[in-house]
């Protein structure tokens, strides 16, 4: 089972649908759910959904603090990506320009979540805040014309962040990104 932590995003249910289409069991879990309870459900992977504000990210921070107890791949989408960056010492703030709908993302590093995808990806985004400074021990995986930090990966742990939305129907090869993540979860 993959746990989708609900941060009040518009596309949380789309993540669930995408995983269902891939054929993987997923559960949408409110971000106010106690971390121990999430642990008891034994997720094989965790996804932080997008959402309107870091203040409403509930127990996501605590999940990161207790990440060692889970030890499973973790993927942050949009706000989830910013949350991960912030937790590991990066900076998050209002971007110079917002990104809505179609953007072109340049993939700098194919492994692991962009495996097998083209070097330029046409994806959909919806955000005004962004990661402004890379967190420690992270590697940059992708960037765009409007936003320098579109995707990141921890150097040692299977923790990933993506600023755009691979789960929406308009994102090219979006399902492949989830398929790559599911592969990492060894389900």
């Amino acid at each position, binding site marked *: 089972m993959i746990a989708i932590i609900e941060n009040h995003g518009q596309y949380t249910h789309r993540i669930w*649908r995408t995983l269902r289409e891939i054929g993987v069991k997923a559960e949408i879990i409110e971000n106010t759910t106690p971390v121990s309870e999430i642990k008891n459900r034994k997720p094989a992977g965790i996804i932080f959904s997008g959402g*309107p504000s870091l203040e409403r990210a509930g127990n996501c921070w605590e999940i990161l603090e207790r990440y060692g107890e889970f030890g499973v791949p973790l993927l942050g989408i949009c706000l989830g990506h910013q949350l991960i960056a912030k937790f590991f010492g990066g900076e998050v703030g209002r971007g110079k320009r917002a990104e809505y*709908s179609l953007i072109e993302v340049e993939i700098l590093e194919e492994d692991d979540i962009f495996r097998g995808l083209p070097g330029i990806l046409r994806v959909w985004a*919806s955000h005004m805040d962004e990661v402004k400074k890379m967190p420690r021990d992270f590697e940059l995986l992708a960037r765009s014309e409007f936003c320098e930090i579109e995707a990141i990966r921890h150097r040692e742990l299977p923790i990933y962040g993506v600023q755009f939305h691979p789960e*929406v*129907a*308009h994102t090219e090869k979006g399902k492949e990104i989830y398929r790559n993540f599911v592969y990492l979860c060894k389900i």
Partner: protein
Amino acid sequence: MNSLIEEKVREIREIVGDGKAIIALSGGVDSSTAAMLAYKAIGERLYAVFVNTGLLRKGEPEFVIKTFRDFGLNLVAVNAEERFFRALKGVIDPEEKRKVIGKVFVEIFEEEAKKIGADFLIQGTIAPDWIESRGGIKSHHNVGGLPERLKLRIIEPLRDLYKDEVRQLARELGIPKEIYERMPFPGPGLAARIIGEVTPERVRIVREANAIVEEEIERAKLRPWQAFAVLLGLKTVGVQGDIRAYKETIAVRIVESTDGMTANAMNVPFEVLQRIAFRIVSEIPEVCRVLYDVTNKPPATIEFE
């Protein structure tokens, strides 16, 4: 998908037991599919309530009533045009509008349910309806308009599905193509396509413009997700037959989408857009200018309100 039909039918049958239920039928894909599932589940104990809000598209009430009578459904058609217009008088704020419409809908459903002796209200709510309502983006009439203490128990068999999945289900249920291929139409109807106050006169203008957009899209054999007209409530200057005009502006919105959650403005051939503009201005004397909306969703929503 067949197993999904069985699962939903069983679910409805279990909840309703030997009681009666009404379904809020608009004639769109979602409520029609929910109606057929419910009909399969409880047959004659289902009553479809169709409300003519006065905010529907050209020819729509006649089309819906005829189609579903032919199906053999118990159909109750309620004419509530005046009631909706009365409730909407002076209402300008888009959220307020949606809530007023939702409230009148619920009142009508409660009245009809009482007459029939039904305890359940089946609705064709789909995932984007509650996602957008809960996220505070917009209150969908079937979610945001509901009072806290509703006398009816609600059943929403399509809650976890998106429109593309509902269409597939509709096909498998044997619902005719004219219904499952219909473009989505908002619950608040043409009220969501009128900026500012909703009056019978302004509905008439946007209804005519909307019909022209739909006809021309059909004629050009385009297959967008949605194509419609919006009355912007904004007057601009024109020159018509050497005479100054100062009249209404219509926006045309044509988008492509899979599920309504994200959408792109369609790259419609310019000749088609020009023909739409020509017809709107020549057939609707209150209008002198037509604009085409090129914004995607996000950042804009598909409907204007």
